């Protein structure tokens, strides 16, 4: 992983407050776990039926029956619990998930999220993503600022089929931390060495700048 991505993931990890129940989505969000201290009080949830995820294990130390929703071998911590898929999503839908961090294809300036389908190209099904996006108390997105072709992923409106409407609170990219404010995308922090102008240029909708200095990460 590039330095910029590592910094972004480390910054996202600071979003987790003591005592939270957190679900980390497949891809970049899963890496957040590597930035949590061993004594940090948090409960990580995975939708295939585990509260209390421990550190990721190498294959030779893996338990064949113990994976996360992305299929990675994981471990437990003291106080973990296993449960069925209905109970797992009961936890999500009933408001017990304080925070989820998800990947994205597109995020709109009103917080709509598209991350499950590209018609004609990629239609594997939504898995548990809709419920995470719709029902976690706070939804953060970890994504690159632009796609491989250089097109902004943060847009006025989503063109792809949406996962959930008006769900995203904050976006972490390799360039910036951007909130979904009532008035639209709002710059919160900048990656070191990146300017507000560069972020605005890589954003597909107006970017609101804060008054005064912009913190860096």
């Amino acid at each position: 992983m590039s330095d910029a991505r590592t910094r972004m993931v480390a910054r996202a990890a600071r979003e987790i407050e003591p005592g939270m129940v957190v679900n980390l989505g497949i891809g970049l969000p899963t890496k957040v776990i590597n930035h949590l201290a061993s004594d940090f009080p948090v409960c990580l949830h995975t939708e295939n039926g585990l509260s209390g995820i421990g550190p990721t294990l190498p294959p030779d130390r893996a338990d064949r029956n113990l994976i996360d929703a992305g299929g990675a071998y994981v471990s437990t911590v003291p106080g973990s619990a296993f449960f069925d898929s209905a109970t797992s999503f009961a936890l999500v839908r009933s408001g017990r998930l304080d925070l989820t961090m998800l990947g994205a294809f597109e995020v709109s300036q009103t917080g709509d999220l598209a991350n499950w389908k590209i018609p004609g190209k990629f239609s594997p099904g939504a898995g548990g993503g809709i419920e995470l996006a719709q029902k976690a108390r706070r939804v953060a997105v970890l994504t690159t600022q632009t796609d491989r072709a250089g097109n902004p992923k943060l847009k006025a409106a989503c063109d792809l089929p949406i996962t959930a409407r008006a769900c995203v609170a904050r976006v972490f990219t390799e360039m910036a931390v951007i909130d979904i404010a009532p008035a639209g995308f709002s710059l919160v922090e900048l990656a070191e060495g990146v300017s507000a102008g560069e972020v605005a240029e890589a954003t597909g909708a107006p970017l609101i700048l804060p008054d005064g200095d912009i913190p860096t990460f």
Partner: protein
Amino acid sequence: MRLPDKTTTLEEAVAGIGDGAVVMVGGFGVPGTPFTLIRELVRQGPKNLTVIKNDANETGMGVDHLLASGQVARLITTHIGLNPRAIELMNAGKIEVEFNPQGILAERIRAGGAGLGGILTDIAEDTELARGKQRVEIDAKRFLVETALRADVALIHADRADTFGNLDYVATARNFNPLMAMAAPRVIAEAERVLALGELPPDDVHTPGPFVDHVVELGALTEEYAVVRR
């Protein structure tokens, strides 16, 4: 990463339940009834409560104390035949009682705990309990809409808890406890034993810790826990 500690005192666990609160109470008869939490709720004294419990316990036990102290305005239940006071208060119009088929009460609570709006069932369609309920048709078959139940607070009795709030129940003391432990934003569990993290096997946990907010360890059990008078 370590899992947060949720242990607290009886007084703090129950503090701040306001007048008019909706309170779920676990238990089926004696087993699984959180007698100590109920006593503390009586002591702290919030009024005008809606109590959701399978039954009304028996005279001098559990929910009967809340009835005797006049704290209950409404009872959502399945069967109160063993509590003459509850029947008397109902007949005198002093409490409102809503009866549910037992498994439907369980499903309505579970639906609340699962973040659903309700369930569709054909149970009780031909009875007076179906009166006034909305209907939905699926493939030309008619179902009753039974709405989800949630509470402001759930009072739970567990056999064992760990400090994170993972719970297990024993024998027929399980009953409504794991359902109610999902169905409130504030879940208070009394436990006969509180264990260190890691002492409850993760495959045997009945209520996962993320659902639970406060854990109170019981001292010596009062007489209520041991008596079945019939």
